[in-house]
């Protein structure tokens, strides 16, 4: 029972169990699940089972090869997803600055990105996540200032006021309170200097501690 004709015969819907009584489907399951070498006591001594398993192993090998084929992610998939999410959540402008030559608007996500970047450069900060949706304090400020919107502003524009929520993971052993205060100080300075925001509130939640990466640990 070798070659294609053997496999065809085995899998023919009209085919019978093997002469020893073993079912072909069970043997195929065993092979397909990668257990072809885990023979039962019966299979170790049964020539019919061993021949069928050998045949099915050859038959199923292309499926296993197919499963191992690497799949490469389309270049733009991740960016497309994030762009869609941006469109869904970032229709609120945090800041509007009117000048003689026109209006400058800076999106919430930019404020969050600048804040996150500033925070992540503070010694002792392992990870900083910047919340840039309407949730939490930002939403409260948005609602509180609804009556003071500039006529040229889109809904949610808050003039030169920004509220930033940051979640931090701090390196184990660092003085959490000092790290958090330093994050607030640097983020506020950065937002004022780079984005021109005058009224900035930075809320910091330290919700994790983590060890330094191995390559930064002292030995």
């Amino acid at each position, binding site marked *: 029972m070798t070659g294609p004709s053997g496999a065809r015969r085995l899998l023919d819907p009209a085919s019978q169990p093997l002469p020893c009584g073993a079912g072909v489907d069970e043997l195929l399951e065993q092979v397909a699940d990668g257990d072809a070498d885990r023979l039962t006591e019966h299979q170790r001594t049964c020539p019919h089972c061993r021949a069928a398993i050998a045949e099915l192993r050859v038959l199923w090998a292309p*499926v296993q090869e197919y499963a191992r084929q690497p799949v490469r992610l389309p270049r733009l998939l991740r960016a497309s997803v994030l762009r869609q999410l941006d469109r869904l959540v970032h229709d609120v402008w945090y800041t509007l600055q009117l000048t003689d030559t026109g209006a400058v608007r800076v999106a919430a996500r930019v404020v969050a990105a600048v804040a996150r970047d500033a925070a992540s450069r503070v010694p002792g900060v392992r990870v900083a996540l910047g919340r840039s949706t309407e949730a939490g304090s930002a939403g409260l400020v948005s609602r509180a200032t609804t009556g003071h919107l500039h006529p040229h502003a889109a809904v949610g524009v808050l003039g030169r006021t920004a509220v930033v929520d940051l979640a931090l993971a701090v390196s184990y052993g660092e003085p*959490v309170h000092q790290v958090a205060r330093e994050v607030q100080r640097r983020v506020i300075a950065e937002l004022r200097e780079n984005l021109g925001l005058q009224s900035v509130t930075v809320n910091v*939640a*330290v919700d994790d501690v983590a060890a330094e990466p191995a390559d930064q640990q002292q030995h």
Partner: protein
Amino acid sequence: MGKVVAGGSRGMGQDGEVEGFDDAYLVRRAQDGYLDAYAELVNRHSLLAYRVALRILGHHQDAEDVAQDALVTAWQQLPQFRGESSFSTWLYRIVTRRALNWISRDRRHGSADVLPELADSSAQADIAFERTETVGAVAAAIQALPPAQRVVVVLHHLEGLPYADVAAITASSVAAVRSQLYRARRALGSALAEWR
């Protein structure tokens, strides 16, 4: 200046952690509204979403659309995610449902193209599979299976998920999954025997 809140701690070395932060942590932060936490989940799992969609649908562009849709849907449904399964299992469920919906809408029916468009040399950088006769035969045989059988073959034999996970993802029982796999393996085996 603002508030400072401290709380929570967690050790390192847990399963599934990458650079010290596991999916469960990122899911919790994303549920709190931190979009960049979800962006990191997208970074980690977009290949899974695309690969499963590609193997079920057999067409690159359809797979990209479905994967994108699934990742956005997952974000929208994140408030309902209770963490009873891993994030990846939950994403598998969303992707397979989206893929099955796509099939039922009959888009691009019969245009199986799980292999890259080699006619367009500029597309080769994005080639997802190496075109070989063997791989092409398997891909075609899988595409010929009924959708429900195709899904369990992809999840169990290609993604390597155990029966219980496949049952959870497809909202069926382990017995039903095994039954589908029995039929699918026989059909696949017959197709491959003919091809050889």
